């Protein structure tokens, strides 16, 4: 049991002001929904209702797309260097109001303030800053290849990194000369709504950025709108496949960033203490609500017992609780639905015969919580070893040889990310060459940077976000 008592160190909620009700942001204004329907967005750590957001129906979506079409005319007239300056200004404003955004993100989504403050927000600002600089250099990015923007782009983002995913989508799209209709996740719309205010503040031409809130039906209207030229989606593989099917036979660009079941391979010659830290960060970062989370621990058989012992000890140090407490490592599960899904998969894992370790800790009475969990004695065919859990649950498998590690790691339809832990350089390169994954972390995990392309192999989707390669997701060949 962890006996270290920390004094509570709570970030004040006073910095944010949340409206009772929000409309869509279309054509530079907040407008009431045609649907006249709203849904509540709650704080998953208290279950308290924070606000009501509009549910976009077909007409709302159409209005937003028409606005983006009008916006495109303005954006085309805006010179690349002017576009660049708008994005730089957005980056600066985000930096200035970063604390406000961070608190809002933690309130609405349940992630610990130390992550929203020290990871999400700095990355968001940097991402706008990075792509701002590309806006007037698009012609340099890919040699003599002639490209053009798609036009009106529909973007659908998930609830795990709400504002960060917005920045991954919006910054490169605008930098490449497109205009945007963005739909944030229904459980985490508040930071996107605050971002919309910033677009107004920097004087971004009306219609260049449009925001439509709602649930899956709103997203579906966006995908099926006849004037959309490209869809960029981040979310589950099943919804990704549905979108790909919906777009069949239509001349609409598509990039998908879908699920994962990343292997985190720990060789017996790894620096074990560093690997423990990396494995913990790999799966418990953001409550495990991470598509590239290192959710399958592959540990070499001869160090299994020693490694698991160290891992359990380290896990016990994790502090679960109020997302706004600066000491919190693990915040709230994003929604009741997600909590139910995690609980069900974990129960199945136990039923299948997996050995479950959960840390000893007290969970708050209200809100949605799940104890950091570790499965050992797992067979490769258990659901917990194959399905994406998207929660703080790590599944352990063992291997004897590097060949076997690679085989197990690749034995999944996913291919988003992977981790390698060894002190031997040649073994890193040998393993990295053979892993079927878009991002590979060697002796580190869950590192992100606007300059670094991110995206998957196989059924984890296609297209890249970040870096020079991320531009290609928003440019089409015009040769």
């Amino acid at each position, binding site marked *: 049991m962890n006996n270290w008592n920390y004094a509570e160190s709570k970030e004040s909620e006073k910095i944010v002001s949340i409206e009772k009700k929000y409309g869509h942001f279309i054509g530079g204004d907040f407008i009431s929904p045609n649907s006249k329907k709203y849904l509540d967005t709650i704080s998953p750590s208290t279950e308290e209702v924070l606000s009501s957001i509009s549910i976009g129906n077909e007409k709302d979506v159409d209005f937003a797309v028409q606005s983006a079409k009008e916006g495109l005319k303005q954006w085309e007239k805006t010179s690349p260097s002017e576009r660049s300056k708008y994005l730089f200004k957005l980056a600066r404003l985000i930096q200035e109001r970063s604390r406000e955004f961070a608190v809002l993100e933690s309130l609405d989504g349940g992630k610990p303030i130390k992550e929203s403050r020290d990871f999400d927000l700095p990355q968001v600002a940097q991402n706008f800053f990075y792509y701002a600089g590309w806006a007037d250099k698009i012609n340099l990015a890919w040699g003599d290849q002639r490209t053009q923007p798609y036009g009106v782009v529909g973007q659908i983002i998930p609830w795990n990194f709400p504002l960060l995913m917005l920045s991954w989508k919006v910054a490169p799209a605008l930098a490449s000369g497109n205009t945007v209709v963005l739909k944030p996740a229904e459980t985490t719309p508040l930071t996107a709504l605050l971002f919309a205010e910033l677009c107004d503040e920097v004087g971004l031409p009306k219609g260049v950025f449009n925001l439509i809130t709602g649930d899956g039906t709103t997203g579906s209207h966006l995908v099926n709108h006849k004037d959309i030229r490209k869809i960029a989606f981040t979310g589950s593989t099943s919804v*990704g496949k549905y979108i790909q099917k919906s777009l*069949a036979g239509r001349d609409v660009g598509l990039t998908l960033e879908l699920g994962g079941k990343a292997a985190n391979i720990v060789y017996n010659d790894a620096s074990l203490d560093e690997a423990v830290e990396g494995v913990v960060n790999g799966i418990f970062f953001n409550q495990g609500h991470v598509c590239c989370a290192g959710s399958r621990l592959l540990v070499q058989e001869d160090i299994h017992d020693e490694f698991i012992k160290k891992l359990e000890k380290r896990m016990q140090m994790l502090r679960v609780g109020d997302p706004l407490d600066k000491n919190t490592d693990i915040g709230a599960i994003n929604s009741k639905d997600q909590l139910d899904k995690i609980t069900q998969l974990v129960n199945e894992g136990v039923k299948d015969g997996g050995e479950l370790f959960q840390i000893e800790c007290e969970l708050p009475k209200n809100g949605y919580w799940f104890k950091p969990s570790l499965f050992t004695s797992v067979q490769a065919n258990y659901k917990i070893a194959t399905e994406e859990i998207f929660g703080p649950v790590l599944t352990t498998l063992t291997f004897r040889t590097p060949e076997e590690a690679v085989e197990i790691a690749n034995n999944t339809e996913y291919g988003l990310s992977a981790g390698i832990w060894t002190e031997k350089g040649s073994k890193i390169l040998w393993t990295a060459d053979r892993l079927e994954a878009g991002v590979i972390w060697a002796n580190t995990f869950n590192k992100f940077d606007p300059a670094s*392309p991110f995206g998957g192999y196989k059924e984890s989707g296609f297209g890249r976000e970040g870096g020079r390669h991320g531009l290609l997701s928003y440019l089409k*060949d015009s040769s």
Partner: protein
Amino acid sequence: MTEVKKTYKNYVNGKFVRSESGKVYSVNLKNEKFEIPLTSKKDLRDAVTHSKEGFKHWNKLTMYNRSQILYRLSEMIEGNKDSYISLLHQHGLSKNESKKDVENAINTIVWYSGIVDKWEQLTGNLNPVAGEYFNISHQEPIGVTFSLSSNKVSLNHLVKSFLPAMSVGCSVISFTDENAILALKLSEDINNSDFPSGSINFITGNFGNIVEDVGGHVEVKLVAIYSDITNEFIKTLSERGADSVKRIFNKPAVDGLASILPFIETKTVWHPKGK
């Protein structure tokens, strides 16, 4: 003396084979009619199985080696230039057009041969991340590619429908219908150029017979459509393909760096720097 007439067969796994169905269709040239294998669903599955193996073998070779194999193909065609010119003429092209087309095809092959060991220097790079990390993005071939080659009677267009994928390391199943003879003739020179078995395969027939299976086969990682096909076919391919998040490209670029981008997957590797 009676002339000996050639029997054209599919080219799969480095072998010339008939359709297992025994079915054929007719292709009429100026003076002659040929019976061509009508590829069945089973033939397609066989081709995919071999292409999967071919992908492994093609990828084991060094870029230098692959580059030389492609270059050898240009040498083979140069040596048999007259027979290609005559065949294209039989397809209705003028002598001059035929000659120009073969020369263009040779130039195309030489260009792709030369890009094999260079493209990755153009598509990959170090990423200047904000931190003490070595971070590099490089590319890998996507894998088994199904290519619908152009409807144009042209050797140059034909080679442009598989070279972009081959030059980055994908294995290819190249499909032709009315231009089947040209493709099957080319397969003979391919066969003499040291390509590993299964790395490049030519099958012929009616695309409508196999469109659902191409879309639905999970081992076909990518479909590149260089021909004009109906929107109905594209829809079927995409709907079936979505189940395995298949990469489907309609009319990808056929020149320059842009032509190879559909066939590569970007892998980014991070490592901390430290003492």
